[in-house]
């Protein structure tokens, strides 16, 4: 109970509606798909070295051979539904966006840099993605992004604990 009260206090003094980040031509924009009423937590990764590490991590993952027909539509359920990453950086410019959900990663590649639209999720999920799936058996990419989210303070231990429980 005390921890809830403390979290409530922290929330009360810090509550803001996390607006979608402004377009940053040198960043990865990451949205944690988790909330229903409040806007989802959103953060950016701007360190080029870190962006390179993340994209290298992705490219090192095996492609799923002959992937089954799939839809990029986010499933309507309560709680954690994965992460969406929009690549607005100059690193791997053909890489447009990722949808990360546990061991499955959907990759959308583009020939031109994406333009910013209000919701990161809307850019990655609104249209059918190319049928490229990567398999992240150890969930290394998901864990890395969630750790970044926690370190940047956009999710707290309460939320992280829920996400961990869904794995």
């Amino acid at each position, binding site marked *: 109970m005390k921890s809830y009260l403390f979290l409530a206090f922290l*929330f009360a003094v810090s509550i803001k509606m996390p607006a979608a980040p402004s377009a940053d031509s040198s960043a990865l924009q990451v949205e944690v798909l988790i909330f*229903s009423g409040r806007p989802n937590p959103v953060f950016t990764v701007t360190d080029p070295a870190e962006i390179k590490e993340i994209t290298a991590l992705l490219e090192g993952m095996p492609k799923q051979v002959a992937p089954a027909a799939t839809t990029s539509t986010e499933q309507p359920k309560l709680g954690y539904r994965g992460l969406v990453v929009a690549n607005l950086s100059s690193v791997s410019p053909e890489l447009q966006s990722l949808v990360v959900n546990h061991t499955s990663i959907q990759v959308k590649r583009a020939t031109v840099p994406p333009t910013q639209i209000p919701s990161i999720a809307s850019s990655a999920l609104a249209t059918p993605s190319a049928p490229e799936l990567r398999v992240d058996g150890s969930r290394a990419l998901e864990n890395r992004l969630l750790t970044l989210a926690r370190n940047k303070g956009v999710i707290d231990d309460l939320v992280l604990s829920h996400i961990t429980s869904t794995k």
Partner: protein
Amino acid sequence: MKLLTLISAACLCALGVAALPAQSTSVPAMTSPTTPSGLVTQSGSYGSPYEGWRAFDNNDDTMWISAAFQTPAWIAYTFSGGQQRVVSYAIKYVNGSIRTRAPKNWTLQGSNGGSWTVIDTRTNQINWGGVEERRFTVTYPGFYSQYRLYITDDNDSRAGVVVISIGKLSLVADSSSWTTPAYEPWYWNDGSTVQYNNNCYNYSNNRRTDTFAQPGRASGAMYTSITDSEVSRGAISDGLEPTTAWGVSSSGKTKIALVIWPGADFHWYRQDSDGLWSHKPGGTQATNVDSSGALITNPETADRGPYTEFVGYFFTPSDQVQGQGHANIR
């Protein structure tokens, strides 16, 4: 009754006005500009005994008297419970032997927080008695949360408003339009603007705002923490009415339910016209199944994932047209 009044169908029949379907909304007698609910504003007043709320205080011995030589003179009321569809109104003049202060030319206007829309125009209203009430049918009724009587001339021979006096302003709202929507998820599941910018609060209130609506934001009383009491307070401020699992709205309002993920988030369900429940988790699609894939017959027992606390039920003024609810949300 010196009060901005929503008159029931029974009252309308007694007054000889065309009967409307039953509705139960009422506005209590005002005891200040903001109590017990809503907000009374005016262009000006002759002094503190004659402020605008006196036209709504259910007392025939008091009145609103405008500031002198101020054109236009207007008096407005903002409903705390969201939009109302006012179909007629009445002005009661009670200034005795002084007849010049009765309104002559005016418009009735409606607004939802932005610009004002003229919904009725009256000109050359002369020969008022010392105590007389005149009733008017609104020419272009619509759903508005704010109504304003906008007066450009009185019965004084001098041009413009010299002084306006109004003993009572009554509004008659037809709330028979409240209708519970059907489960029609395709409106919300467009995979684009509607889906991504409207959340569970939008869906449960059946009102598209494209703002990811938050309880209390429209009414200036947004929750400050994710607790039962705070989110409920915000919703009530937006005009939602608490009820029970067995509650039935006599005016046809839609029942919705609030659940909480303590300290993290809130979520809303709505009961559709078929009696089953549906919801829209954030920017995802609207659905009528819970987190286990089961049809939602009871939000209290549905699989709600981390939203473990069931808070309670509320009524919201809705419409059968998807996205066209009338709660005051943003």
